């Protein structure tokens, strides 16, 4: 009942011995994720928390453990290199939590990834979770999720938790929730995730949360209009943001008319998405769309 991650996921954490990496690796494990390896250069040959082998390189870790998903908690200055190392080792899915990676680094990374089979989620994202498979790859609080048939995709972290919490409170479970990240250049777009949800037989409807900046919501609207037959509930935040000011996320800045919230809402409404009238009404808008 999910996309991208499930019971077959074998997780590797890059930066597992760091403060953040260690804290979240433990929570992923507690949620039920199959954590098979950690990587920290210089710490190879040790055991993390007496449970998980640590390797010096991704290549060694993959050879020994058949890890197939990488989760990155490496500081911003080294994160691009970490993504490249995982892609070079052939890991099919890489989720990068790190915030603050210089844009030109990500330009080079995304160019490299074009010639590789790896998919990158993020950076600057909360990760992804499939509650029905007890598989959590990221920093989201696991306990607010419940298994079900609604897919969630969002550029934000805590706002995604808000949406999930509203769904769970109304008894609407989730198939997979994907945070694609708040940076101007991210590995996986709304369109990519919408396509996966549309083709997933265990997803009945989709929540899509966007914000000001860029024009990815408009591309998503076109895709929804042409290809998505499942109900889509959407919220766009940043209606009150002034132009030219970065609202926290590096990508959340109004640089032209397409970047404004109103333009995104208009495109999504015209594409047939159900627009949540306020951030408090994501759950009930989905409830109405599902007719439950």
């Amino acid at each position, binding site marked *: 009942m999910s996309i991208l991650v499930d019971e077959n996921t074998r997780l590797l954490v890059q930066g597992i011995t760091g403060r953040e990496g260690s804290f979240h690796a433990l929570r992923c494990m507690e949620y039920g994720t199959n954590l098979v390896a950690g990587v920290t250069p210089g710490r190879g040959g040790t055991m993390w928390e007496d449970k998980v082998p640590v390797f010096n390189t991704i290549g060694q870790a993959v050879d020994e453990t058949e890890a197939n998903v990488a989760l990155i908690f490496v500081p911003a200055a080294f994160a691009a290199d970490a993504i490249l190392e995982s892609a070079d080792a052939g890991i099919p899915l890489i989720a990068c939590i790190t915030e603050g990676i210089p844009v030109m680094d990500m330009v*080079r990374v995304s*160019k490299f990834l074009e010639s590789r089979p790896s998919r990158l989620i993020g950076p600057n994202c909360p990760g992804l979770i499939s509650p029905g498979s007890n598989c959590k790859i990221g920093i989201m609080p696991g306990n607010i999720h419940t298994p079900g048939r609604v897919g969630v995709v969002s550029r934000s972290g805590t706002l995604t938790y808000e949406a999930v919490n509203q769904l769970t409170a109304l008894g609407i479970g989730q198939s997979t929730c994907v945070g694609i990240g708040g940076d101007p250049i991210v590995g996986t777009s709304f369109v990519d995730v919408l396509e996966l949800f549309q083709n997933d037989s265990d997803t009945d409807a989709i929540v899509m949360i966007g914000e000001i900046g*860029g024009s990815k919501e408009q591309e998503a609207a076109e895709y929804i209009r042409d290809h998505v037959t499942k109900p889509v509930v959407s919220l766009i935040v940043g209606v*009150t943001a002034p132009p030219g000011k970065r*609202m926290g996320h590096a990508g959340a800045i109004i640089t032209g008319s397409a970047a404004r919230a109103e333009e995104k809402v208009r495109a999504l409404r015209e594409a047939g998405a159900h627009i949540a009238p306020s951030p*408090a009404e994501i759950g009930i808008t989905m409830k109405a769309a599902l007719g439950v």
Partner: protein
Amino acid sequence: MKIHEYQAKAVLAEFGIPVPKSGVASTPDEASAIAAEMGERSVVKAQVHAGGRGLAGGVKVVGSPAEAASVAGDLLGNKLVTHQTGPDGVPVTRVLIEETAQIAKEYYLAVVIDSGSRGPVIMASEAGGMDIEEVAATTPEKILRANIDVVIGLQPFQCRHLAYGLGLPGELIRPAAALITNLYRVFEAKDCSLAEINPLVLTEEGQLLALDAKLDFEDDALARHPELQELRDTDQEDPLELEASKFDISYVKLDGDVGCMVNGAGLAMATMDSITMAEAMPANFLDVGGGATEEQVAQAFRLLLSDPQVKRILVNVFGGILRCDVAARGIVAAAEEAEDRVPIVVRMLGTNADEGKEILAQSNLGVTLVNDLNEAAAAIRQAAG
């Protein structure tokens, strides 16, 4: 990070881009001395981190060194208000005195990151000297684009396409291509988010010249450019935003009277939107961060309290890594020091929310606790009094 025009032109010159002869003055006497070197006529330009200077009286052509001193005297030490600065304006502490140019034609040239193609794009237009946003909206066919593959870099043929596309005379194709290449070198070497020459002019003498220039540097890359950090002018920044940046708090000053503190940028924007739906206006954007400590929460809350425009406060915390009890202790610590009390509405959810709410209820701050964003909006409406 923004820098001044004179600093941007110095960087461009370093990379071989032709700029007018000029000097920077911080007193009328200096202005007069520099103007004397420029000949009879010169241009006096206020140095501020905002566009729209011309219309606001910040750019003036003068006919003598004495007039340059007089114009500089009017600008220096005062604030310049343009359509980009807000009503308070920004202080002018320096003016650029520049030689005048005989302009035959004006062009636009810029490099930015295009998130659609996931790479840099060069934009050029024969509609120079205008607001490029307006050109894009009304006559998009006048904007030429060249997407750059960062692996192979900007190619000579792309520069030629742009130069011919701008309709430049044959003898200027090579110099224009060199100039475009050099602007891209600046963009790449300095991790710019914007490298813009507007206008790029063709002079009556047949030379290309960067008459005005703007370089914005990417904040996330500043750590690897110590030479750029020295160019920061904190006088141009909002004092509250400057204070926030010292504590690594993501904060933007806005015009309303509802101070808000939230964890997470998306939820912060959602909270601002909810405030607007309650027919109120947010005083700020504030993301305290995912893993904030009690001290960081207290600092963020002090920032709200120190803003004289703030008449009521809305806190929205979705506890995850940041526990609600930690946030509550930070709020209480900051609010108890404050002399004036403003109504505080708090919505807490997630990790240790009950403990957090208990801490706030036990304090003598008279906090209104709410359960969701609709209730929060209603409580903010009521707090208007």
